[in-house]
């Protein structure tokens, strides 16, 4: 899925297990917008023992999106705990963006996943 200025770019690779979401996300109806993403993810994770790298490379997202991201992390955490998955989250932030770094830190406190906070 290619992004516009309020819709993120979503690139999920079925074969490599590298899932990436990047850009801006401030759609007003994120429940509807993110539904296909959750559908894909749930189908992908029905197979146990996958190794997954989830890259977040966001420049901005609204509070509505913030809930959807937490839901993604919950799904990944459950996959790791119950289906033998190995999940790594790479949270990228522009090196001067203190708020984006803090947002990544706060997610890492809320779920039990390997989180790398990576400036670029």
């Amino acid at each position, binding site marked *: 899925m290619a992004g516009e*200025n309020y819709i993120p770019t979503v690139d999920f690779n079925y074969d490599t297990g590298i899932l990436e979401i990047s850009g801006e996300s401030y759609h007003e109806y994120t429940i509807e917008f993110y539904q296909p993403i959750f559908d894909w993810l749930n189908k992908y994770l029905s197979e146990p023992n996958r190794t997954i790298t989830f890259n977040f490379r966001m420049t901005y997202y609204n509070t509505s999106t913030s809930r959807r991201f937490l839901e993604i992390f919950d799904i990944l955490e459950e996959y790791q705990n119950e289906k033998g998955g190995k999940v790594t989250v790479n949270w990228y932030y522009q090196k001067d963006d203190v708020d984006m770094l803090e947002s990544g830190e706060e997610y890492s406190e809320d779920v039990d996943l390997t989180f790398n906070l990576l400036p670029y």
Partner: protein
Amino acid sequence: MEKDFKVYSFYKQMQVNSVILSFKGAVSQDLLSRLAGSLKKKSLKDDPNIGRRIFSIFIELSQNVHLHSAEKSYSLAEDRPIGVGFLLVSEAEDCYWVSSSNLVKKEKVEHINNRCVHINSLDEESLKAFYKEQRRAPQRTDSPGANIGLIEMVRKSNNPLDVQFFDMDNDTSIITLTVKLNKPKILN
């Protein structure tokens, strides 16, 4: 329009108060992305962190208007009624102001006001805890919003929410929500 309304004085007031952006009308997704884009170009060049925070607060206020304004306009593009309101970003010597204004049903005034008073009473740590708790709470069934926008605005600005209500008619009020963002102090 009442006959004493003067476009000139309205415009002059905006000039004198260094208004960066103002809009009144239906806050559609498409319009919001255009306004936000122009705001980003203007504000990011000074200080990237302040610019990003203005952008973020502007989006949250705009989406509150879109979702919660009691005045709606049907959008063909979005195929649903969307909120009508007023958005304003202005600059002073030591800060920026980001505001929204829209109609609200009187029965909702007390709840909104109580929520703002509660959020304004919290220190940084309690605000973070409240944010996390509310983000974890189940999605409200009557709104697609995340219910953390007001908290986010205070966390981004480090200033209290300025919320005010004015009577419009028997069952409607005007709400104004203003967030102040301090500019970084320049040391001499």
